[in-house]
């Protein structure tokens, strides 16, 4: 039993590598922040494209649906490897884009962010869509009857209501996104899992990895409780048949 304990919970190893792992974990949080912000915007754009009215815009809707289906089906790891293993060699793309070093971050950082945004854009688009479709049809009719065009109705009537319905499922997506930042370790970006693996191979001890897991739990557990609370609040709202205003 003590052998098990020493393998996974060697506080000596944890202490020695604590700051190194924490610093690497902060990189996960930075990737998350950048990817989440972009994915939330990209997903909304996709969801709105998917809701375009009329026959003429059918091709746009079709392409959007195909994108969403495709990138929800392909494992993120494959996307990361396809981008990092391919984009740098596409000589028709300017070098500053195919090997980006923006804001002092190395190219694997940006390949990872790109992969996460591409995939999580598809997932968040589905969450937005669920919210948009949950707004009663009479709302769009009322807005259009008052002379608003489709975009005005979306912007001022439909989307603000949709956003009040989706915080809980959206937060779930964000939790997944945060965890998936660890996949960028496979392209040699120094985030928490990569650093923990280095410790593992150097000391043949898993305690640094446990420390990394612990950091994720610390951040995510409270978020899970927030999700619970949001769901409870939403059920209250539905029971009262009303919505809460969004700023």
């Amino acid at each position, binding site marked *: 039993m003590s052998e098990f304990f020493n393998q996974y919970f060697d506080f000596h190893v944890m202490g020695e590598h604590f700051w190194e792992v924490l610093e690497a974990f902060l990189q996960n949080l930075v990737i998350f922040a950048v990817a989440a912000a972009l994915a939330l915007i990209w997903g909304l754009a996709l969801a709105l494209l998917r809701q375009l009215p009329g026959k003429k815009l059918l091709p746009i809707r079709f392409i959007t649906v195909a994108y969403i289906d495709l990138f929800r089906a392909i494992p993120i790891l494959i996307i990361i490897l396809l981008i990092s293993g391919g984009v740098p060699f596409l000589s028709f793309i300017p070098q500053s884009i195919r090997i980006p070093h923006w804001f002092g971050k190395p190219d694997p950082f940006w390949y990872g962010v790109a992969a996460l945004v591409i995939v999580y854009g598809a997932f968040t688009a589905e969450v937005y869509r669920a919210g948009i479709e949950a707004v009663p049809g*009479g709302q769009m*009719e*009322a807005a259009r*009857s008052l*002379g608003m065009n*489709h975009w005005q109705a979306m912007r001022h*009537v439909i989307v*603000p209501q949709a956003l009040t319905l989706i915080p809980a499922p959206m937060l779930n997506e964000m939790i997944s996104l945060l965890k998936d930042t660890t996949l960028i370790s496979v392209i040699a970006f120094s985030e928490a899992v990569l650093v923990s693996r280095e410790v593992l191979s150097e000391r043949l001890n898993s305690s640094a990895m446990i420390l990394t897991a612990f950091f994720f739990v610390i951040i995510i557990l409270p978020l899970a409780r927030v999700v619970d609370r949001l769901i409870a609040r939403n059920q209250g709202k539905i029971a009262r048949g*009303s919505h809460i205003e969004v700023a």
Partner: protein
Amino acid sequence: MAETMVKLQGICKRFGSLEVLKGVDLEVGRGEVVCILGPSGSGKSTFLRCINLLEPPEDGEIFIEGNDICKGPGSGTGEQSWELNYVRQRVGIVFQQFNLFPHKTALENVTLAQERVLGRSKQEARAKATELLERVGLGDKLDQYPERLSGGQQQRVAIARALAMDPHVMLFDEVTSALDPELVKEVLDTMRELAEEGMTMIVVTHEIGFAREVADRVVFMDAGVIVEEGPPSQVLENPQQERTKQFLGLVLDR
């Protein structure tokens, strides 16, 4: 009859294999109040929604103030055709389920489209909204959200919201059907005042009393056609058609 405001000819509409409207004609003059009665499924609501192209008809012609909105330039009933804007700037509609914007206050419900569609300034829109909400008796509810208002109050906000766009014609789609009985009167009173002020109104309703008192003309629809029409005294008191007699018998004998 006064100058024609709305003229519909041979309106046909089907949902899949179901033929809801089988060539309906109607002409409504300026300032006229027309009540459309009929059993559920008679097509009266669909007909009303055809007038402002919420349900574009498959066949037939619609003239609003003399302009053909179905066959003009850029014709068709698609989203891009110019008729949509033309119609919706002239025709207001009030729905059975109110459809107020729940994330906006009563005042904001009435100002939103004024600002975004008509381009009125915030102050202008606010002044107009305040005036209209006071007129429908809700001057003290400007900053309330719909969930805090009764059904009758919500429906009056919806009427004010439609009036804020300065419509030439108002459509009412069973606006009292979702209301508790004691709230029906306040909404009907508001509509009555509107009629007295000379608004052109097309009203789909089950309120026979309202039709008798306020309507200039009553139209009875069944199975996608107009069965009978005329002044309320004639259609309601002395119906000629068997179907009308049957319907009114059932409604009035309750």
